[in-house]
């Protein structure tokens, strides 16, 4: 075996084993045909573009689309649905914080007392508003089946978040903690899902104009919850606050919603792509719920807060395992080619 062949076979290990069993030999044949006349002394390696093409094929074979085998197709549908849910979460979060940021700029009354409107605050607030609008636009583009703009906007949003987190970590090193990293993971995962799962073989997305407003609706519902439940909770003793607060912030509400949706899907025997999508969605929430920042901290209600958050993370982990297992069990029931050529497997 020539040096180049060894190297190319190493590159092919990116592909799933079952795919390699079927295709590796002919791919090696085609590759070596193209590299006719290369000797070991030349010390040639597969070009970056060849490696990139194998990487693209590896993504397509694992996160399947039209014509993919059932397991890969279900994985693909699940990752596509997760991308939609994840971008939707960030868009809802953006609409929710937009109101607070507008208030911070003093454009709306009442301005909360704790907000300082120093010049630096203006800059940060403007950046946050712009970032939020990018997520809202990215989700809207995906809902309207405009994939390229959706990808560009999502990458822009992620890059902006990384940049602001990096700048803030340089200026105030103490701000770089576990919660920032967890939020970065939660922000990046749907973007990675969007970039990898909506490839050229992905089933066409059905454009839905009403769906574009869904995150705004969720944000309105959340605000309604905050305005009705918030004041009552604020009057509770500090000890009780620790038990309640982790269910009331956006991540807490998302955790509760995911737990309820997951249990409903498990009992209703929902389609495996939906089960798997919810299992993937649990991962970023688990990362954000692990109470590393509070362990060992002192104060009224902190212990209750830590226990609640840890319990949430544990419940999500159990749910994710149960959902994945249920999805795997449901897979063999599928035919040779899964599903109609539909967009989001809702």
């Amino acid at each position, binding site marked *: 075996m020539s040096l180049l062949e060894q190297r190319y076979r190493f590159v092919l290990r990116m592909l799933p084993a079952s795919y390699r069993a079927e*295709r590796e*030999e*002919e*791919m*090696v*044949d*085609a*590759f*070596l*045909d*193209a590299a006719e006349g290369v000797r070991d002394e030349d010390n040639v390696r597969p070009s970056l*573009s*060849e490696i*990139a*093409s*194998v*990487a*693209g*094929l590896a993504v*397509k*074979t694992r996160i399947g689309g*039209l*014509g*993919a085998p059932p397991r890969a197709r279900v994985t693909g549908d699940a990752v596509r649905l997760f991308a939609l849910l994840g971008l939707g979460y960030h868009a809802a979060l953006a609409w929710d914080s937009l109101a607070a940021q507008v208030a911070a700029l003093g454009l709306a009354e009442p301005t909360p007392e704790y907000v300082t409107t120093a010049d630096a605050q203006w800059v940060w607030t403007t950046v946050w508003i712009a970032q939020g609008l990018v997520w809202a636009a990215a989700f809207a583009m995906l809902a309207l089946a405009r994939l390229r703009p959706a990808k560009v906007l999502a990458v822009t949003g992620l890059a902006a978040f990384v940049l602001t987190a990096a700048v803030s970590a340089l200026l105030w090193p103490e701000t770089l903690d576990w919660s920032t990293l967890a939020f970065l993971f939660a922000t990046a995962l749907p973007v990675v899902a969007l970039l990898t799962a909506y490839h*050229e*073989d992905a089933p*066409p997305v059905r454009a839905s104009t009403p769906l574009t407003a869904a995150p705004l609706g969720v944000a309105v519902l959340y605000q309604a919850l905050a305005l009705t439940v918030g004041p009552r909770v604020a009057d509770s003793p500090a000890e009780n606050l620790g038990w309640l607060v982790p269910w009331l912030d956006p991540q807490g509400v998302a955790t509760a919603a995911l737990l309820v949706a997951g249990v409903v899907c498990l009992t209703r025997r929902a389609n495996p792509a939906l089960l798997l999508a919810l299992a993937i969605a649990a991962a970023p929430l688990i990362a954000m719920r692990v109470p590393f920042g509070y362990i060992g901290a002192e104060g009224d209600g902190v212990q209750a807060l830590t226990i609640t958050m840890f319990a949430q993370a544990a419940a999500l982990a159990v749910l994710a395992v149960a959902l994945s297992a249920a999805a795997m069990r449901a897979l063999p029931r599928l035919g040779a*080619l899964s599903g109609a050529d539909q967009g989001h497997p809702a």
Partner: protein
Amino acid sequence: MNMTEPMFLALTALVDEPRHGYGIVQEVERLSDGKVQLKIGTLYGVLDRLAAEGLVALDREEVQSGRLRRYYRLTDSGERALQTEVARLSGTLQTATERLSARRGAVSTRPSVAGGAA
């Protein structure tokens, strides 16, 4: 079905005879005047999709100097899909040609400008 350019070229490469992987790469390069040089990973992504849609099928396997070589052929439904795409592209071409002719007609009635329409 949304047919991408590599899919269209790969199908066209198989019209006259069955070809193996690198044979398709070479033919696609010829057909596109060297503009489209399929990488092996891309080629097999395209072949997977075409085979799943039933547009190409395995023709035969050979062993050449100890290496496996598979030949693919265009199926009847592959031929129909290609004809449909050709008809669609022909329509687009015709429209473009007509509009260019109309534009040339309009341009030629104007006083000519140095370095104008070539």
